[in-house]
Every structure is written in C-alpha cells, then in structure tokens.
C-alpha cells in the first residue's frame, strides 16, 4: 500500500508541475522585477516598495517597467536597460557579470569549504593518538567543573 502511494504521488507532482508551468503572468513579472531594482530617489528602498511621499522617481520608473513588460522584453533586457539608464546602483543585487560574480560565489563557497574543513578536523582529531595535554587538576577545579556540568547538562 505504501509503495502504491509513493507511485501515485510522483505522477501527481509531475502533472502539477506541468499544469502550473508558464504561469508567470505579467503581474507576477512586474512584482518580481519591481523587487529586483531600487528606487532612484535615494530613499534606499526597493523600487516597488518605495512609499516615500511625492517621490519623483518611483512612479515613472514603475510605468517604464510596465511598458517594457507589455512590450515583451525579457527580464535581462529590462534590467540591462534600467542599469544603462540609471547606473549600476539601480539593481538591488549585483548581476552575474565580471567581478560581481564574486559576490554570489564567496558565501556558498565558504560554507562548503567550512563543512569540508570541519569534517577533516573531526577526522584528524579522531585519528590522533597523542596524549592529551596535562591540565591542572586541583580539587576545587574538579568540584567547580562537576557543578558546571550538573547545571549545564544538555
């Protein structure tokens, strides 16, 4: 029965994936791209979230964005056009070009290196057979550590 359910779930997921594919309507794209850019007025807010009163830029920029989407421009074309017009700071995140790739690569790379290093460290510690360094073993010390262990038992 369990196996039967597993086999039933898989085609259901595939069917749902196919059914929902390509539903990225223009409203969704407008919202997504509006979140990919900053408002040019200097308020420091994402374009679509700029709520600053009498903002001279967000209205015209959003109108430009709507026109570009209706014209059928691709996301990349729209972002590049905005970048050319308003400068590189208009994009809310660096594009995957030249040096900017570094911004995206470094954090996940560091995580992977860290995981690898931690695994190696644990392995090295496990394999090490040298005796542990001598630590002072005063009675007061042991009593304190016992108390700490009791109180911090996790």
């Amino acid at each position, binding site marked *: 029965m369990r196996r039967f359910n597993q086999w039933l779930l898989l085609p259901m997921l595939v069917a749902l994936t196919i059914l929902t594919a390509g539903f990225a309507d223009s409203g969704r794209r407008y919202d997504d791209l509006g979140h*990919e850019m900053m408002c040019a007025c200097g308020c420091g807010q994402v374009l679509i*979230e700029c709520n600053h009163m009498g903002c001279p830029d967000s209205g015209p920029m959003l109108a430009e964005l709507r026109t570009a989407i209706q014209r059928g421009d691709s996301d990349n074309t729209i972002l590049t056009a905005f970048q050319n017009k308003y400068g590189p700071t208009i994009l809310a995140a660096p594009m995957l070009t030249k040096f900017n790739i570094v911004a995206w690569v470094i*954090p996940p790379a560091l995580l992977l290196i860290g995981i690898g290093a*931690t*695994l190696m460290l644990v392995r090295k510690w496990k394999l090490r057979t040298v005796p542990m360094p001598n630590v002072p073993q005063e009675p007061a010390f042991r009593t304190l550590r016992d108390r700490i262990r009791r109180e911090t038992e996790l």
Partner: protein
Amino acid sequence: MPAFGSFALLLGLVLSGYSLLAGAIALRQLSTGSRGRVSPERLAETARRAGIGSFIAASCAAFALVWAAFTNDFSVSYILHHSNRALPGPYKFAALWSGQEGSLLLWAWLLSAYGFVLRLRHKVDVTLTAYASAILAGIQVFFFLLLNFAATPFSLVSGAVPQDGFGLNPLLQYPEMVIHPPMLYLGYVGFSVPFAFALGALMMRYPGEKWIHITRRWTMVTWLFLTCGIFLGAHWAYAVLGWGGYWGWDPVENASLMPWLTGTAFLHSVMMQEKRGMMKSWNVWLIFSTFMLSILGTLLTRSGLVSSVHAFAQSSIGSWFWAFLVIVLAVCTFTYILHRDHLKTENKLESLVSRESSFLFNNLVLLVACFTVLWGTFFPVLSEYVQGNKVTVSAPFYNRVAVPIGLFLLFLTGIGPLLAWRSTSFRSIRRNLVLPSIAALVTAVVVMFCGVHPWEIFTTNDQGSFYSWVAFSLAAFVVTAVASEFLRGAHVIQRHTGQNLFASMVQLTRRNTRRYGGYIVHFGVVVIFIGLAGHAFNQTQEQELGFKQSFHLGPYRIECLDYSQDSNSNYDTEFALLDVYRGGKKITRLSPELRFYTASQQTSTIVANHSTPAWDLYVIYAGKNPDTGQPIIKAFLNPLVMWIWIGVVIVAVGTGIALVPNMSAALASARNRPQDASAKENEMAAAGRGGD
C-alpha cells in the same frame, strides 16, 4: 546645565582614565610581585572606585541632556536639532538617543552602568573582575574621548537662541522608538562585559572555565536585549515605515544582526568548553569578534561608509572608530599570541555523530551567515574599489544567499538535541529521527495541498514558495524533536512522582532550566521561521477610494466610510476611515493616517493594521489624488506575521527560564538538604536525559 553636562563628561574621562591606568599598574604589580608606594591592592581598589565614579559622572551628563530637552534649552545645539516645544514628554526623553552625540552618550552611560554593576559585584572573583574592570575602563575612555572632543552633545548654538527647535524626526515619534534603541544599545554595549572577562582571563592565564560561568548570565541577558532590540526595530519598521515589510537588509539592520549571530554561536560553543574543555581559542575569538562587530555596527551607522536610511549624518568620527577597532584587534591578537598555549583543548572529538560536532556545524553555519551579511554589507565598497563603480546589495541578494543558510541552521536546530555528547549510535539516531522525519514529511505534503507549491522554483523561478515549503517542513521536524525531548524527560518524572504530564514537564524544566529553557528558545526560533515563511505569499493592492467605494484583497473587502483631516500643535494629519468586511460581515474599522510634522516639515505614515494569526491586513494612507481629492489606499495582506512577534516572546521566555537557577541546585543550597537526597534528585534528572 550645558556646563554641568560638559563638566560631567570631562570628569567621566578623568575617572575612567584613572581607573584604566591605576588598574593596569596594580595588576602589573600583582602579577610581577613588585610594589610601589601604594600597595597594589589599595591601588586596584581606588581604580574600582574611580570606575564606579565614572558611572555617576556619565549619569550626570545624561541627566543634563534630558533636562535640557525637557526645559526646551535650545541654546544646546543638540536639543535645537532634535526637540521642539510641542514634542510630547516621552519623545523628549527619546531625544537622548535620536542624534549622533546623544546616542554616543547613551553608549557611554550604558557602558558605565554595566561597569558599575560589574565593579559592585567584584567579590565574585576579585582579580578577574579587576582585569575586566580595567578593560572596561579602556573602552569607557574611548567613548568619553569621543564625547569630549569629537561629538560633544553640549555644544552651544552661535548667535541668538531660536524660540523653538527643529523637532524630532517623525519616524522616531512612535512608542517603540522609546524602547528599541536602548534595548539595542543594551545588547551592543553588554557584549563588552563578556569580552572584558574573556580578555582579562586570557591576560591573567585564568585557570579553568569560571570566567565563562561568571559571564554566562551577562552574555545571555545581553543576547536577549539584542534579540529584543532587533525585533523591536523590525516591528517599528513594520508599523511605522509603511512599506509592508519588517526587514529590509539595510546596512544598519545588518550591523545589528552580525554581533547577534556571533553571540549566538558563542552561547552554543561555550557549552563545549564548560562540559568538555574544548574550543577554548574558538570561544575567546568568538567573543572578541562579537565585541568588535558591535563596534563595527556603531561605526557603520556613523561613518557614512555605507549608504543607509537609518544612518546618522556623516561625520568624521568614523576615523575614531576605525582607530579604536585597530587597537582592539591588536590588543586581542597580541594577548592571544602571548597566551595561546593556555588555551589548549582538554578533549578531542570522539565521533562525527555527536552533540559536539552538531555544535561545530552550528557554529560554522552561524559564522558563515555572519560573513554573508558582512560580505553583502561591504561588497558595494569593495566593488567601488575594484571596478570603480558601486553596486547595490539589497534584499534579493540576501534572500538568495542567506535564506538557504538560515534553513540549514534550522535543520541543525532539530538535529542537535537528538545527538548525545561524545558519540551517538546509529540505532539511537534512527530511533530519535523517526518521529521528527515523519512529522516533516506529513507537513511537506499537507502544506503542498494548502497552496505552497515548491515546484514553482522550476516553473516560475519563484524561490519564495520553495523556501517556505522547506521552512514549514523543517519547522515540523524541529518542533517534533523538541517536543519528544520534553515528553521523554517528563515521562520519567511522571513515573517517579505520579504527577500529570504537564506538571512533570514543568518540574523537568525547573530541574534543568538551561537545557529546557534552551529548547523553548529553539521552539521560539521555529515560530519565527514560520512567520518569516509567510512572506512568500504577501499580496498587495493599491486603490483610490471615494465615499462608500471599496476593493477586495484576499478574503477582505475594504470600504471607505469617510476621509478627513485634523491638526494639533505637533502635526497636521490626513486620514481615512475604512470598514473591513469578511464574508459580508463587518469585522473592524481601520484608520490609516498621513501626518505632516510642523517643526521638522516632514511627513510620516501611520499604518492601520488588523492582525490575526493567519495574516495581517496592513493598510496605509498613500496620499491624496490632487485631481479628485480622494485618498489613495494601499493595502497588504501579509500572512503569518503575528507568528514572528509571538516567536520573539517565546524566545524571551525561554531565555528567562534558562537564566533561572536549576530547582535542585537552588533548593539544595537554600535548604542544605542531605547529600543523598540531592544525589537521588540528580539521578532522576539524569534519567530524564533522553537521547544522551
């Protein structure tokens, strides 16, 4: 009063300078055995008293500034720029931290207050406290120098004194702003204490882990303050800024998150040092980094190094902070190199599948998260240096890079409690993982049927749904893991005492407050993650509304009942009265406002929010159509936001519980019970240690 304040600051500098010098000389004499004209003990005592005196001086200076605000003394430049006659009393008090100079005075005052408590409680360990006191005095000297020479809060206006001030920034005229900055500063400044103890312990080659035991409560309280400060700021942004969100990955927000991440890592990894004498160097550097990141955060808000909507005006004090950071780093590095042999580990990891390694990974992920935030914050500066042009690193970057890291951390939150110290057998893991894994799988399927479609990451490139789906599933995993830990322990107590399950759980928690308080904190973190996961399903609608006109958003219909304007001495306001219907039934009336503050000539939105556990109906008055005179209403439907605030309360409660001494220990010391009874209790508590 300005003269009194200036004098108090100067006195504070002298006293903290004396505390540093005399303390350092006394400690040097004590360590080398040399003696001067005054015995080192007496010299150290005068240093301690001078440190206490510096708190009184800082208090006088802070009082003088608040007094100037309340008496409308606009001859003081700071009061002129941050207050006005019509400003309500609580906000006049908040003027203390609303500007650069005042907030630095708050830093100095809180630091002195922490120092005051530390110096009063010096008997807990006289020598170690003397070291910590001298180090704190060094930090105080830096802040008093700033206040006396670089950012003077009592400088006077030149020429005729204006009749009224320019007022407080309208965004700060909100009740939470009276609490949020002090909370955040209590967090930032508080990390100075464990830092001072760690550095002092290293300098004096303090034997053992007592310094951690002494500073454990300091660190937890500080961490709690920082947590509350960060989330109060998020709530303030949500309730006041009117953009529908609570976290914008602004550099100043990031600045508060970085020490929180390293502080959280420290709170976890010190347990390894306490229990197994491991990771000593790591812990020392974690607390050093946390303190330096607190200073870096303060630097970020003041130097103009990165653009931020929250930053204070650009000023030259950035170079002071850079110099201080370099000095701190140099002192820490030098001390570490000199005494690193003292930090040798006493034990090694015995298995990859153990509580120790889960802490290692937890630390790794927290530090990578911290680095990601730091990297994103400084990448615009780096980009300008390398490419010659600045780029923006905002929410889309962090959502793509930091969210997966956060989810990995959530996963570890569930795994950690299931592993035992030293080593865990695969049989035990399998047994402990079954229930949480089933809960995660069931939740994953249920939320898919509830409309969370993870496959949208492939079809519409919508990562939000996918991450939310993962977050909900992991939340179920962690909650089940935590709950099964509680139940396992409670059942043992129940068997021994015959109490009901709830009473057994309470007793279990009281027996080991740190462990179970920690689990409650983890539960709170899960609840926060659930709230954050709702962000992927936000909806918004903007519409101009005339009388009796309405629009729909989600299950709600919003109808304009009226719109009008009003004014008082502080501000003019435009507002709309909106009736909210659900299923044809009126459920509430909302009144979003737009205020224009007379003194500062600035506008501010006052959000109207109808909050339920399912979602927030968040409405702002976006302005008036100049052609029709009708209000433009912007409404957001933000799912699960309330869960974030509930999660924070749970985190605070859990931390509070973890701060309380264990029942058995407290009772044992209070009643001096026979040894065998205490031993029996410990045995029972040990029996409740499921998974260990």
